[in-house]
């Protein structure tokens, strides 16, 4: 039996994704994040790197540069450019993923670049590029949020000047209830998914996507829930950066 059928059974067995006591399938409360672990400076050859485990997601990010942008026609004489490349390993999902870029990974690469551009002080390195490689080793819903959070950590590790960190988290609608940080079953069988990314100091939103339908009230509730989730993730980011100093001290 493949995993999709397993998930279907998991859902239909109990009938719902949220139980009567208000707990979700993995025992979390509606406003609870999955377990998150972050580590900085995991790749020696990269200028900066980070590894994030977010629930069952496993993301590895390497930052290279600033270095001369090639080909030359992509150079901007007034500021640097940010090029993120999101890639899912062929073994990252239960059905083998065909290697190489596809529509989804091109879209995610683009939105991650855009979100990070809002934070990076790219005027410091005109004509240059910062290349960010995001490798999803294991995927379980919410990889774009986990990748963006990891990319921001790797940039800080590389010493790239930024006006703020970038943190990301998703909220959504499952069984008619607004919940934080959707896992795979909730993402597959839920009614909506709203990933957002913010600059925590100013609260500026640098990424917002919506897949599904939400009423105005639900949208406001989901946004506020995701913002609170982002603030919790920000604390974990700070902790991971400070912990990285142990290897220096």
């Amino acid at each position, binding site marked *: 039996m493949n995993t999709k059928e397993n998930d279907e059974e998991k859902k239909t067995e109990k009938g719902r994704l949220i139980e009567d006591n208000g707990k979700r399938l993995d025992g979390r409360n509606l406003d609870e994040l999955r377990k998150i672990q972050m580590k900085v400076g995991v790749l020696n050859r990269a*200028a*900066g790197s980070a590894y994030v485990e977010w629930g069952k997601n496993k993301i590895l990010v390497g930052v290279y*540069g*600033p*270095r*001369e942008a090639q080909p030359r026609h992509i150079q901007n*004489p*007034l500021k*640097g450019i940010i090029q993120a490349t999101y890639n899912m390993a062929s073994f990252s999902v239960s059905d083998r993923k065909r290697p190489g870029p596809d529509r989804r990974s091109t879209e995610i690469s683009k939105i991650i670049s855009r979100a990070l551009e809002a*934070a990076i*002080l790219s005027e*410091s*390195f*005109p*004509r*240059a590029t910062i290349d960010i490689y995001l490798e999803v080793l294991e995927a379980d819903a919410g990889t774009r949020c986990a990748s963006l959070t990891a990319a921001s950590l790797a940039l*800080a*590790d*590389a*010493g*790239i*000047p*930024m*006006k*703020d*960190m970038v943190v990301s988290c998703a909220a959504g609608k499952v069984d008619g209830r607004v919940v934080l940080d959707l896992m795979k079953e909730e993402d597959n069988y839920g009614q909506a998914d709203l990933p957002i990314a913010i*600059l*925590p*100091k100013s609260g500026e939103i640098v990424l917002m996507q919506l897949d599904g339908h939400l009423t105005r009230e639900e949208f406001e509730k989901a946004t506020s829930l995701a913002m609170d989730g982002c603030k919790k993730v920000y604390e974990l*980011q*700070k902790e991971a*950066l*400070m912990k*990285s*100093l142990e290897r*220096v*001290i």
Partner: protein
Amino acid sequence: MNNMNMVIPGELLGSRTEVKAGTGAYEESENVCSAVFGMKDKRSGYVNVTSTNGFYMPNEWDQVIAIIADVDQTIWITDIRASSPAILRANEAPWKVEFGNTSHFLTVGDAAVVRIKSYDEIGRIQITMADKNLRKINSGYIVEIPTNKIAKLIGREGAMVNAIKKLTKCRILVGRNGRVWIDGENEGICKTILAIRKVGEEGASIDDVEKVIG
């Protein structure tokens, strides 16, 4: 290293009425905030943040070690570990270079001690060899360490680098771009490389370096 002084990007460093933004900091409305992850330091009315890791930002008159990446008819294109390649024009070289004869003096892979002549706002870097002590490197080894560890390697009034020179009897030249040239006896070179790596990776003290050199 005191964690209390460590800041992450976006962290508030003070009000603009109290301090000015130095390196690694920026001003936004009424506040001065950190732009990088590193250690904050308030001095003479400025707040600076020294990044724990970072790339080389050229400053005029920095002495650096350049490696030739490409050769043209009248210029050399060099790598100085900055975000853009640095240009060395034939008229900035210490030789009389005929048109098209540039590779006779310096070719791809060669190294030279140069100085930053200019670094403009659109990222163009010009370097020069027309000054004393600037020359082509013909012997020895080049080691690379993070640029933020260069101050540590030099030490207070050159204490660290002088201690290494004295213990290993090697000639050492420290480039601001994190490249260090070493020349001397083979045994001394090996010990110097180990000592420099120790400083580059762990920020070792003079005592630690003396232990490494033995």
